[in-house]
């Protein structure tokens, strides 16, 4: 089977399995939720998060060859 035919077959299967959503609209007005979000106090970073970030940076410093592998999995 050629790549083109294969792509068509996969396209057909995927389209049948997932089905297009087409046009959709939210069921409610989202502005009140947006306002709540805007009024939330900014999130504070805990000391544990800072400690973890520091540990990761230290690990990168000691093992720089591991950086691409970590970035790949993000």
């Amino acid at each position, binding site marked *: 089977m050629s790549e083109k035919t*294969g*792509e068509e*077959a*996969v*396209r057909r*299967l*995927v*389209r*049948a*399995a*997932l*089905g*297009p*959503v*087409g*046009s*959709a*609209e*939210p*069921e*409610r007005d*989202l*502005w009140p*939720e*947006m306002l709540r*979000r*805007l009024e939330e106090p900014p999130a504070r970073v805990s000391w544990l998060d800072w400690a973890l970030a520091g540990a990761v940076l230290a690990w990168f410093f000691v093992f720089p060859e591991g950086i691409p592998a970590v970035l790949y999995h*993000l």
Partner: protein
Amino acid sequence: METPERFARGELEAFEELFRQFQAEVYGWIVRIVRDRAAAEDLTVETFWRIWRARARFDPSRSFAAWARRIATNAAVDHLKAARREEPLPDNLAARPAADAAVEEELHEQIRRAFGKLPANLRATATLALVEEQPYEEIARAMGVSVGGVKSRVFRAVRRLRKELERMGVRA
């Protein structure tokens, strides 16, 4: 002063005008990618939250809709990355097949499972291109890549899907 300019200067009323004008469009785009209406509502709010935070970087002479769609795409892909580890497979939001088509439903389930294993960027691109049949130019603009980049992602997604389906014993 026009609404986008007022928004860029930080006027909340202008932001509300833009929110009300574009929330349906942003939601519609996000739900096409994540295929989950509840998540799409949360992500619409998340998108506009990012938009509000980035207002100083918005150029009012450019299209707000295109900028919003780009941010919405990033939010949706971030969601897929997180959901890949936690959530079940994307479901079919369109009409389901007849109840007696158990074999067909099993096949669809396998395809959805294979689709759910794609990396978030490939999955989002493949959903928009293969399922929603959005123009490649539009997908490219929304994802911040070239049309060639979109074609490449679709090609890679299809190749991975074929391999995965073959592994599952499904012939594509």
